[in-house]
């Protein structure tokens, strides 16, 4: 049995509900409206291409006629018959495992040094950042010319130090990837700037406190700088690995220019990978199979595999590092 007061309150609650719901709905509409452009972009430029790639990867498709369903045949070819896919995957892995950490380490070291610069710090920062502004194609062309075994200044300088037969650099299958590594280190300005901002953000008091506790330089780096920098390092590592998995332009231009076939407007399928497939990256191989060999169905299978690898790396890596995040540690 309910009292009058209770019944009145109940009516008031019932009366308030539609109003609240309307307000909530309105709020939701506003939120959805604001999110709509982003969601549309996501649907058009991510979900649709992803679904399309998955669909095409199960078909025989030349990019021009209607696709024909062939089930997992493309994947079977990928894992058992493709003569170059594992070479390309191995080269890409080299860039992921060697180039990314070296570039980050170098950028971190330079950023660390720049935080200590007492004079002309702006000039130094600009100098180290400038190469990152050079367009990738231009920087690769410049590097291939600089490292030209016969006419480049690098081997000329080496000859002053008694190296009569300088390395072949981009023309040597054993040195072509390390040569691109040097280029990557040279253009590390974008990462260096992020690290610099992160390092300048580390509270000074922490260093002072650690000094009072008797910590030396490496200990401060290990116990103060690194923990404070972990979010920045993770961001740089994740974006660096994803970029390395998609490495294309630098390797393609290096191959073409080193082979002496730089041209504009014509196919590059024949020059990719030079020398001896040492610069053939996974995405280059995908491009060749799609655009040069008209095998878009198979190229889609390669793309899907790349997506799975990148996503798996991301998930595993983020799970692994979660434990090291400062906020995780405190919770």
């Amino acid at each position, binding site marked *: 049995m309910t009292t009058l007061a209770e019944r009145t309150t109940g009516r008031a609650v019932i009366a308030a509900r539609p109003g609240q719901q309307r307000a909530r709905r309105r709020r939701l509409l506003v939120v959805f409206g604001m999110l709509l452009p982003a969601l549309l972009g996501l649907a058009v430029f991510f*979900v*649709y291409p992803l*679904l*399309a790639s998955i*669909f*095409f990867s199960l078909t*025989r*498709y*030349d*990019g*021009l*006629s*209607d*696709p024909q369903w062939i089930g997992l*045949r*493309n994947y079977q*070819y990928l894992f058992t*018959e493709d*003569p*170059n896919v594992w070479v390309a995957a191995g080269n890409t892995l080299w860039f992921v495992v060697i180039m990314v950490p070296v570039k980050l380490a170098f950028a971190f070291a330079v950023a660390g040094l720049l935080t200590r610069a007492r004079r002309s710090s702006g000039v130094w920062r600009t100098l180290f950042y400038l190469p990152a502004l050079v367009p990738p194609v231009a920087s690769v062309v410049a590097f291939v010319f600089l490292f*030209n*075994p*016969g*006419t480049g200044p690098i081997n000329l300088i080496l000859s002053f130090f008694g190296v*009569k*037969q300088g390395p*072949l650099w*981009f*023309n040597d299958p054993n040195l072509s990837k390390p040569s691109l590594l040097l280029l990557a280190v040279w253009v590390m300005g974008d990462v260096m700037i992020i690290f610099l901002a992160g390092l300048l953000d580390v509270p000074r008091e922490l260093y002072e406190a650690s000094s009072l506790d008797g910590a030396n330089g490496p200990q401060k780096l290990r116990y103060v700088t690194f923990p404070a920098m972990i979010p920045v390092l993770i961001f740089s590592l994740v974006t660096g690995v994803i970029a390395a998995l998609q490495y294309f332009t630098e390797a393609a231009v290096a191959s073409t*220019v*080193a*082979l*002496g*076939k*730089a*041209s*504009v*407007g*014509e*196919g590059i*399928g*024949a020059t990719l*990978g*030079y020398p*001896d*497939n040492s610069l053939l990256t996974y995405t280059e191989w995908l491009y*060749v*199979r799609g*655009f*040069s*060999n*008209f*095998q878009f169905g*198979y190229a889609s299978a390669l793309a899907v595999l790349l997506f799975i690898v990148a996503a798996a790396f991301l998930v595993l890596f983020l799970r692994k590092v979660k434990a090291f995040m400062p906020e995780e540690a405190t919770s």
Partner: protein
Amino acid sequence: MIRSTALRRQLVGAVAVAAATALILSGCSGSANQKVDKAAPKVLSGNVSFWHFFTDREAKVIQSVVDDFEKANPKVHVSVHSGQDDTKLQQAISAGNNVDLGMSYSTDIVGSFCTSGAFRDLAPYIKRDKVDISALTPVTRSYTEFNGKRCAMPALTDDYALYYNTDLMTAAGITSPPRTLSELETDALKMTTYNADGSIKVLGYDPLMGYYENAAAHYGPAAGAKWLGSDGKSVIGSDAGWPELMKWQTAFVKKIGYAKLKRFSASLGQEFTAQNSFQKGKLAMNMDGEYRTAFIADQAPDLKYATAPFPTADDHTDLYGGGYITGNIMGISKGSQNPELAWALLKYMTTDTAAVVKLANGLKNIPHLTSALKSPDLVVSAQYKTFVDVAQNANSSTTPPSPVGAGYQQTFEQYWDKYQETGAGDLAAGLTKVDKQINASLALVSGP
């Protein structure tokens, strides 16, 4: 409540997937309307879009011929899209953009474009307008059709032959250009000079595969080597010509030294710049296309040089005079809004002798019409004449169209590139493996 929300989510998901799939499929479909009028229109009128890859000076040459067409057909407007390479052309046709007529720089697309119908079958137009296909040179006829379907017409050719520096040749005491590969090697070694440190100063001929125009396709005619059999499968492993060429080339490389050649080649200028090694006199002989005559006239007018057909394998001297031929091709897009106009323009640019001669004189490529090759209006220098002769030689050949484009050539060249380093290993087994790889790739496109 929870159940209904879940159901709704599933429904929305299913609809989204179905919509996406429908969108995907709708994006891929679209067949060509292949209806052809019984008679060609008496008066041409309307707009036609023409996509080609040329830029700058060369685009102006194309435009001049288009202008002539418009002058002859005042009610026609040609919308010219220059600088559109094969990838863009393919994407535009695939997406259903308004491309009436397309020009490609590569015969490698013919297999795919004919099979898929991206370029329309021209047979009904050719039959209706009684176009004489035999007016095309035999090689250009062969690379513009696939499996009996003619979906393209040739639009000038690139022919390959030997360039030689006459000053360097005279200095080496050589009086005539080599006619066999052995002679090429002997002459090249004679003309090669070295620096005090043992490095190459001037190279007689660079035998390294991959260097400039040194490609398997360009060497093939020297030994009559074949790529694909009548069933469309690779015959590289069973053809006697390829091992012969590979053994000669690898032995030649060995005589100078792979590392030495690699170092020298790496230090040479880019092929399509004024630093080209033949133009700079660092290379005495070189295999190249007729377009080099235009580069030399522009960038190295003082260079003393001559041309000759490329030497043949020692046991194939009967093939002398021929060479590798490739070229530009043109076709009517499957989505053409005005195929009659596209055909009229295509016919004019590829079968009208005066138009073809004008294009050849402007672009310094070789005409694909026999009548144009013999035309008194064709400007023929002594060096260019070699290529005009190669174009008409019965021993000239090309690379066959295939559904994987140049994929089969790339697979073979990769193997050759590797083989030339040492010349070691079982060549026959290696070439059999190449066949297997090519056939697996072809099966992926055409079905097992």
